[in-house]
């Protein structure tokens, strides 16, 4: 057990990180991610209001559609990343555990008078991830199979009311299930009763998301990284960029717009090694001449890839896929290749 975001969390269950990781890619893994912050933005003006603090198209988000978003600061840095799902009468928002108090305060400050910011501290969040997640969850309610990636809805799961989305943090098909805290254990036990489902700890959660090329806040993105530098430009819809109908109007828009036009001096990239040595957070990256060109922000040996994989920020001139660079690990150079992410193919259900 380790302390994480103020919660006492399991790094692994008896199966171990490697086994849990592979099980999730092959069958279904159950994650208790109740430490994450769940918040409702209630009111007709919630979408317009939220767009004043994220560079993302919320207004055009259809009912029960979900979207990835970022809170930015005045310098264009990232305060947190979040998921937003529009429901009939509100926006359902999930933020990171370590940032949730500041995120709630941030939303209350900027959205006051436009919508109600309603934290849901008594809601638990369970994630069921993996190719057999749909098989298992369909046994509790067949209608969940009709959802596609990044959509959600209200579903009774064997009598337990939930709001769930078909999304996650593993690169696999799966669901994130918001359930009343006092019914979370009962639901978790129902899910774990199926032979396909095993409990998964924080260790495999990290290796799964890393292979999927997904950022971990506080490591791969933070207040010093812009969405452009972080290679999250895809998250900024055209309608919010220069020339779009609702361009700008969020903190740091000037910096981000300029980087969208001119590019950034550094970029987040994937790195893969053909050697065995893991390359971890904090390792410096150098070019063939030994000149420092970047730093690793996450890294391990990918259990599915079978090779060391890492996310790193590199000087843009070295950020092209296929570029050969070197990581410095314990004063030794190990060769790495700039690689597209995800490192393992995504397995999302798009219908």
């Amino acid at each position: 057990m380790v302390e994480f975001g103020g919660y006492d969390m399991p790094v692994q269950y008896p199966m171990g990180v490697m086994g849990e990781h592979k099980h999730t890619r092959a069958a279904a893994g159950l994650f208790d991610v109740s430490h994450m912050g769940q918040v409702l933005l209630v009111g007709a003006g919630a979408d317009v209001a939220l767009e004043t603090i994220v560079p993302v198209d919320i207004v055009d988000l259809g009912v029960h559609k979900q979207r990835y978003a970022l809170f930015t600061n005045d310098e264009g840095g990232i305060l947190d990343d979040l998921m937003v799902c529009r429901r009939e009468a509100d926006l359902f928002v999930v933020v990171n555990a370590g940032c949730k108090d500041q995120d709630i305060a941030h939303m209350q400050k900027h959205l006051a008078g436009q919508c109600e910011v309603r934290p849901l501290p008594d809601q638990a969040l369970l994630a069921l991830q993996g190719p057999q997640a749909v098989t298992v969850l369909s046994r509790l309610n067949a209608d969940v199979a009709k959802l596609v990636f990044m959509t959600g809805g209200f579903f009774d799961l064997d009598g337990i009311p939930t709001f769930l989305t078909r999304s996650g943090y593993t690169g696999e098909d799966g669901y994130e299930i918001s359930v009343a805290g006092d019914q979370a254990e009962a639901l978790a036990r129902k899910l774990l009763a199926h032979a396909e489902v095993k409990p998964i700890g924080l260790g495999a959660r990290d290796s799964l998301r890393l292979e999927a090329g997904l950022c971990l806040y506080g490591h791969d993105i933070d207040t010093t990284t812009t969405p452009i530098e972080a290679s999250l430009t895809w998250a900024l819809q055209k309608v919010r960029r220069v020339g779009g109908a609702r361009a700008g109007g969020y903190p740091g828009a000037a910096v981000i717009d300029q980087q969208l036009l001119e590019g950034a001096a550094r970029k987040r990239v994937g790195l893969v090694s053909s050697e065995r040595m893991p390359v971890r957070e904090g390792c410096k990256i150098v070019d063939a001449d030994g000149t420092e060109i970047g730093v690793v922000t996450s890294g391990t040996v990918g259990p599915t890839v079978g090779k060391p994989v890492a996310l790193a920020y590199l000087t843009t001139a070295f950020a092209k896929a296929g570029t050969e660079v070197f990581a410095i690990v314990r004063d030794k150079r190990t060769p790495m290749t700039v690689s597209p992410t995800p490192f393992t193919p995504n397995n999302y259900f798009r219908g």
Partner: protein
Amino acid sequence: MSIKYTADHEWIEVNGDVATVGITVHAQDALGDIVFVDLPAVGKSFDEKEVAGVVESVKAAADVYMPISGEIVEVNEALRDDPALANSDPLKAGWFFKVKLSKPAEVDALMDQAAYDELVKNS
């Protein structure tokens, strides 16, 4: 010759003036699935408690300390190729390196099985 232990969870088995060193069952269990070992160069000398190697799992990297002073005379090449040996057979096939002792008296200060078991029980 019996096996002795360090508080850093290495084991050492002394045979004459050469000792074999590895990590304990408890150490490999705490680390989880081992994916990489960094072994010292043969011929290199270390003082007691110096870092002589590294063992890494998916989730973490840990230093391997020299239990006693001496010169590396052999390393386990099989472990380099199959680091999981340190999980599956930590006390036999998963050994790390062999050391020629330069200060044999240091061995007396290491923990015996009972003392190490007590340490693990209380950790």
